[in-house]
């Protein structure tokens, strides 16, 4: 077992990435992606599952990928989207409880993410936690940058509503 200590949230894509062994990719990306997945789905257990699933998918087609790191990250984002969509079903019937942390604190904002639609949540996390440019977020989500901007604006608006509530 390796205890991960690297605090960097996102790994930059490296040109020589395709030459990385799966083992190297695993060691380099796993802890970072687990953190990203945690931020997206707010569940350590599910985050690990999502990342492991993404690696399992990547492993099966590793030889054919030119950018396995990018593939991995997109798979993680997609896995998180799937998880959040599932939660949406329950949320329609049973709304989430209000954040329990102190209003207006940073943690309160993190709690409030749970009340946002999956796409808005993902865009906010990728932009403000992972510090991704809109263009890169758009690529991960398969949408246009303008849509990312719109989703971000709406997500922030949603957060403001929660704060002011």
């Amino acid at each position: 077992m390796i205890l991960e200590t690297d605090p960097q949230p996102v790994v930059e894509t490296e040109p020589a990435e395709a030459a990385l062994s799966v083992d190297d990719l695993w060691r380099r990306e796993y802890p970072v992606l687990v953190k990203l997945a945690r931020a997206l789905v707010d569940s350590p257990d599910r985050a690990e599952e999502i990342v492991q699933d993404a690696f399992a998918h990547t492993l099966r087609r590793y030889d054919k990928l030119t950018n396995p790191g990018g593939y991995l990250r997109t798979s993680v984002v997609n896995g998180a989207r799937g998880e959040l969509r599932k939660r949406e079903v329950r949320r329609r019937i049973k709304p989430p409880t209000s954040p329990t942390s102190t209003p207006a604190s940073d943690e309160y904002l993190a709690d409030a993410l749970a009340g946002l639609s999956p796409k808005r949540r993902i865009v906010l996390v990728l932009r403000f936690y992972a510090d991704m440019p809109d263009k890169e977020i758009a690529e991960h989500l398969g949408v246009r940058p303008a849509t990312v901007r719109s989703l971000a604006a709406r997500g922030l608006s949603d957060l403001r509503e929660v704060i002011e509530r």
Partner: protein
Amino acid sequence: MSSPNTPHNRDDDELGAALGRGVRNRVDNIPTITPGFDGVERRARQITNRRRALAGAAVGAFLLLGGIGLASLNSDDNAINQDTVDSVPDDSLPADDSLPADDDSNDNTDDPTPPDDSPAISGELTGNVTGLIEKSLFVRSSILEGIADVELYTAAPGEVLSEALQLADGSILVEVHDDPFAGAGRVLHLTEPGAEPTELASFGDLAGGAVVDGVPYAWVGDVPDFGDALPGEDQMTGNLRRIDLRDHSSIDFVEFAYSIESSVGSVDVHGTRVLVSITSEAGPTWRVLDIEGVYAGVSAELDADAGANAWGARFDEEGDGFLWIQQNLADGTYQLVGGNFDGTDEVTVPFAPSEASGQPNLSLQADGGLIAVNVEVFDDQLRYTETIWLDLQGGASNEVEPGEVIFLQAAQTAADNPDPSPPPSESLDLVEIGAWQPLADLGLDGPKGSLAFDITVPIPTDTALVGVVDTNVVRYDPNGTVTTLLGDPDISAARIAADGSVLIQLSNQPAVTNARGSATEVIQIRGDEFRVLSSDGRINGVGIVDGKTVGFVGDFPLFDSQETETADLRMVDLDTGDSSVIGEQVFGIEWLIYEAFVGGDPSNPVILLDGAGYQPLWAYRDIDGNLLELASPTDGRYGVDWANEVDGIGPDADRPALSSDGTTLYWVEVEASDPSLLTPTAVIHSMDVATGEEGPTIEVSLGFTEIALSTDLTISGDELLLTRSFDGVDQDGNYVPEYLAPIVVELTTGEATTLSVVGADWHFAG
């Protein structure tokens, strides 16, 4: 931390930075343990195993309706005898490559967008049994435009489907109770949709099934008639039969003392060995037999003094031991117990269903070391199945499968009302088109409200428009003439077909607020006659197909407290009244067809269906309803990716439309020219259907600051009609759509003209 994205307004940046800190604090507080690399490969195997188990779990997860009755009946005595048996062999499962990491995505080798399996619905069983929806058994298969359910069997009024399992040959075994509180019922063998099922037992317990050496078998316990006997009073001999499903011949497999309080719980097969569980008030007894029913020298029973209930039994992976679920009666805790048949190496894994407030109904599947336990969980509003994955080597984890949420109310309907309403299949039958009747008999109220239209803008088209203004159907001709055709408070939508027929929806909901709303009568008016095209449906469009003027009508199912129902989209010949089914839709929260567009070669036209569910969904079909491949610049998923782009902007902001010649697909995306979204712009996109190449976009200012704006597109020739609506609020505080004047866009020049008549449901006539 500032974001690399600029420019933003300062408030947004500050809020975003605070959010980033909050998330970072949370995430960084949890150390990440990185397993060794072999974990990747192990995970890949686990995924495969989990999916195998999932395919089986789906069966157990839906043993709800019969379970309700039984659970209610047995709620005081813990005498659960509803074990679920499952046997979903490997070859009944989708290949790993078809399994998505993202539910929305396809599996293209180098495309990081993960996959989605998409078998078309056919007359064959293509999916796994996934649901007992109210009283119907469905096989669910993923198809490109969403989820469709093929109905295999519909229980008669008063019947309840209790158990179901699918074998490796694709056939399905079900148990149907004519009394929701009965512990046994008819056991049926289904082989394909529409085929007459074979009755395997008239009053029996479906105990299990499996394919052994290529032969499909079912095990059915015949339950004797106890008459009016009370529990403990009577005991008779019961017989467990093994039935060869190829010819439905059977042999007596095992005979046992069958009392009111004991029954065959389950049968599990490993190789040629069969594990039979028999439940009784004294606890479960397990015996291992060979495939011919000969005792194989292994038996076990739960110690009567153990102070526990036990359910379910499965061979372990190697077949030299077995697993079961146990509940400690003293404290109510649960354990998965596994051990070898020789009594060694017993392992106990405790687990705790979350939020459980009712008596759990446990079923269990074991495969490859991961064990799925399905626990029915009750709380105030929900009854759902929680799947808990247990690893005998490593403890337990909980995972709710929200897709398996079932409304408690829906389940109660079946239990509390043995004969509630006609089965859903009635809504799936082709609707008989009503006879022509005098229009006067329709009892329309005639034009209402002020019709003093302020026509200051002529229509820059060659085609008339039809819309609903106030509660009147209005025809808006290019020369500026506005004609009120009909009026009635119940009119919610209207179309004019090429033959001059007027199609209207009549509902008891307020007009204009219901253009996309609930089901209504769909009426065809021609001359001074009318006829009913659907007694409970919606107009989805009009067009010309093979020289015939047609209307598209989406029939609504009989909502019976269910979450979803399937129903048909019909194409109706407006001359003869003949209709044919060209598509299906799943009502409820999943899939609903808003509009059908016809285009292309008139003798071989194509149809674009615009629908929505969790995500906007479009489908492209031929006139027989077959899905067509649509060239796509992304992944061939019928516009979903483009539609997804606008998800979150507005519920209707993705509307696609098909050009009259069928060669070009248009859709609209509402974009904000600044992040505050105060000046939305409609960006009309186009794509060549054949090549997938995107054409130039046309931007149209929507000229309105309401954020919750939605739009619709319809096309006639080179003109595109863009309608606009937004969320208003009525006097009771309810959100209702409010409409703006439509905009006509000249596709060749991009010129946009805002008309002056405000109304709902505008479309081109004909």
